[in-house]
Each structure stands twice: as C-alpha cells, then as structure tokens.
C-alpha cells in the first residue's frame, strides 16, 4: 500500500516535470521567432497580437481552459477532424494539457525575450548587416548572445510558471493519475481526501523548485546589471 502511494507520488512528479520541460522547450523554439518579429515588425495590428499573447496573464485559467475544451471536443470541427484523421483525442490527455500549457505559458516566454531584444541598440543589428552578415547569422551570433539574461529569465519563468499551473490543467486534463495528474492538482486532491502528509510533500517540492528557479533569475539579472552594453 505504502509502496503504491509512493510510486504514484513519483509518477505525478514525473508528469509535472515532463509537462514543464516540454512546454518550455516548445515555447523557446516558437518564442524566438515570435519575439524577433514583435521587436522589429511594423505590422499595424501588432498591438492586437501582443494583447492576445498576454491574455493568459489577466484571464482566469478557467476561461482559457473552457475554450480549450470546446475546441478539443469531438463535436467541433478541430476535435472531430483530429479524431477522424489521426485518432487523436486531446481532452483529458497529456497532449491536451501540453498544448494548453504552451498557450498559457506564452507571455512568460515571449515578454522577457521581446524586451531583451528591444533593449539592444538597433546599431548592433545594422552594424552586422553592413558588415555583410545575413539576418539569421546576425540573430544567432550577435543578438541572442547579447540577451542571455533575458533568455535565462524567460526559460526559468516559463518552467516555474508551468510547474505552478493549476486551473487550466484541471479544466483540460482533469485529474487522471499517470496521464494528466500534476503535483499542483494532486495537492488539491490529497487535501480533499485529508491526506495532509502527501499534500505536504508535494507542496514542499513545488515550493523549493520555484524558490531555486526564481533565485536563479534574480542572481543572473544582478550579475548582468553590471554588464552594461556600451
């Protein structure tokens, strides 16, 4: 009995960190081009795009969760098409909560990257262009290496936020052990079952991980504060 509970404890933590890692990876790869576009585009509807990306900060997770469930539902075209064509079901699956948490984590990845890129003087980019270097080479060799603090902040913040995510995972994923049950949901569940001991173990781990990640962000930013551009 004791062994069983322990393995489900480990399993829940494993799903929690797997979700956070995949979410962060996907968002980092997708966030770089989006942030670059936001920092340099003169598209007139850019404020709308920026607002959409930032929505998760102000909207209750239940709102986004609700819409995700609507979209995932086999009664709607996307959910139906995914089910018909690929036999994919997103509601109450790991893939489902992964997509939801990618969408929910967007602002935490994009905002630091975007502001990092915007703070670089334009002349760096222009100098590289006038030295004959392509846009992509300039991006990877000149721009990215000079926003390291922003990159570290974006990654740590996205990861930490994803671990702490509760509402949207519960809405979209439910609480299925081994599939969609993550630590934050498990705490709530164990509390209701009056298993204070287990809830406490989850809580301590989440508390410590978040503390370490945020301390990393602050110490990195302090180190780079003295590292002024010009």
């Amino acid at each position, binding site marked *: 009995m004791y062994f069983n509970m322990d393995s489900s404890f480990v399993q829940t933590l494993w799903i929690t960190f797997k979700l956070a890692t995949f979410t962060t990876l996907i968002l980092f790869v997708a966030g770089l081009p989006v942030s670059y576009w936001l920092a340099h585009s003169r598209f007139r509807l850019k404020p709308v795009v920026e607002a959409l990306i930032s929505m998760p900060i102000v909207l209750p997770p239940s709102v986004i969760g609700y819409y995700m469930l609507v979209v995932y539902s086999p009664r709607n075209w996307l959910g139906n098409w995914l089910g018909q064509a690929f036999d994919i079901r997103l509601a109450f699956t790991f893939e489902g909560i992964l997509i939801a948490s990618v969408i929910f984590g967007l602002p935490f990845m994009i905002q630091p990257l975007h502001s990092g890129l915007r703070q670089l*003087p334009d*002349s760096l980019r222009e100098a*590289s*262009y*006038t*030295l004959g270097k392509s846009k992509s080479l300039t991006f990877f060799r000149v721009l990215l290496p*000079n926003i390291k603090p922003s990159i570290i902040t974006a990654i740590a913040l996205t990861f930490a936020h994803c671990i702490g995510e509760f509402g949207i995972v519960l809405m979209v994923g439910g609480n299925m052990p081994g599939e969609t049950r993550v630590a934050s949901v498990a705490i709530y569940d164990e509390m209701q079952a009056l298993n204070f001991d287990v809830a406490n173990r989850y809580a301590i781990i989440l508390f410590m991980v978040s503390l370490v990640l945020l301390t990393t962000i602050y110490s990195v930013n302090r180190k780079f504060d003295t590292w002024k*551009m*010009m």
Partner: protein
Amino acid sequence: MENDVIHIDVSKTMFTANGTVTLAVSTTIRSGELVALFGPSGAGKTTLLRILAGLVTPDRGTVKVGQTVWFDSGNGINLAPQKRNLSLMFQDYALFPNMTVEQNIRFAQPENDRKYTEELLTVFELNEFRNRRPNGLSGGQKQRVALARALARKPGLLLLDEPLSALDAGMRITLQDEIVRAHRLSGATTLLVSHDLNEVFRLVSHVLCIENGRILREGNPSDVFSDRSISGKVQITGQIACIEKQDTVNIVTVISNGNQIIRVIAFDSDIENLSVGDQVIVFTKAFNPIISKIA
C-alpha cells in the same frame, strides 16, 4: 575591390525635431577620396550616410557606384545592406559586446584572414586588448576597434558617422590621425560625418556642406569656409556662445574650434543677423593683431 565613383541623386522626407525636412542631394564622390559631410545636426548628414548603407530607403532617386546600381526607385532596385560593399562606423561604435576585440574584427571578415587581422590589431595598437570585451575599453580604444572592424571586410566605401564626437579634445587629435591612417590603409572612398570644423580642415580634401537637407556649398575646406571677400590676415572660425548687451555695444562671445574663448565687441548693426549657435569667422584687418611673447 569595388572602388568606383559614387553618383548620388536622392530625395527623402525626414521627420526631425524641427518638423519635416526634405533631404535632396545630388553629388558625385570621386573614387578613393576622403570627403566630409559637414553641417548642423538635423541637416541630414546621418540620413545620407544611412541611405548609402542601405539602412534607410530614399523616397526616390538613384545611387550608383561605378557601374553597379545600389538604388533606383524608377526600376525598383534597392540592394540590401549586406550586398553593398561598404562598412559603416556608427556614432556609438556598435561593437558587439559578446565578442572580444579580436572576435569583433574577425566577425567582419567575409573569409577568415588571420594575417590581415594581425595587421589591423597592430596598426591600431590593439594587441594588448585583443582578448578584452568592448565594455572594458575606453572611448578612444573603442573607436580604434570600430575602425579596425570597419576595415576588416576591405570595403570599397567607408562611412564614418561622427566618429570622434564622443571623445575629448586631446583624444580627438590623436584619433584624427587614425582615421587618415585607416583611409590610406584601405584606399577606400571615405565619407565622414562631422560638425567639427577643425576635424574637417585637418582631415579631408573635399567637404559637402549640408543644411536643411541640401548641399549648400562643396569643395576644398579652405575655399568653402574662408570668406574671400575679407582681406584679413588672422581668421578664426568658431561658434557664437552668447551675445550680451553692455551700454551702447554688444559683447559677442565666440568659442573657437580650438576651444578658445574669444570676446568681440560689436555694434547693434553688426549683430543684426547673428544669433547664438551660428558658425562665424572672427578676423582682423592687417594692422591690429598684436603679437606678444608669452612669459
């Protein structure tokens, strides 16, 4: 090395602090020459440089370098900055903070050329800083790195945007020599933005005076800036710092380009079209300069 006569005939509406100004420039720059763009801020000097670099697109016109068309609004040609054989040295130097001095120079080379890197490091006396990053350098050192980096790709056209404006007077003189050296070393046609007369006189053989977006005068600096109608023997150019009224006369304070303070007495009629900030010549007629030994 592309090193040809540059034909410029462009116009561009600029939005400056003083409202919109139309930059309309038509000129030819001879191959291999060291030319200054001189004029007050907001006149369009930097914009013209950025148009040549391909960073700003003119409203209409053409830019031709030898037989190569860089820009032609009529035919929809606009070469990307990457495709123009030039280097632009920015006012803030724009050194890459993530790279060392040596890496900054090597980044600029189309192909790795160790020998030329070493030559540049030596010529600009950067050997002892080669492994330092730009944020650990002084203003003068940064300027030398920026010059070396600009030369590293062996450009046909070298554009310098107020290269010395961030430096103090003593440092300027030393680094003016570096610019001449850079020009000789590369043989590149060099365009230098400046609003320092002293710099223009010392460095260049040809100057384009730009004001309100137009080239007002061009030619040899001493022809352009000395008013030949004055038969003076002593001429000092400078800028009016203040005009004070004292009884029946005015005292005009002029800061010379050598940073000397000169006070000149003027009557009301003399200062009618003078105002603070104007570039002026202070001169004396044949007899009154007095020479005196400094004890």
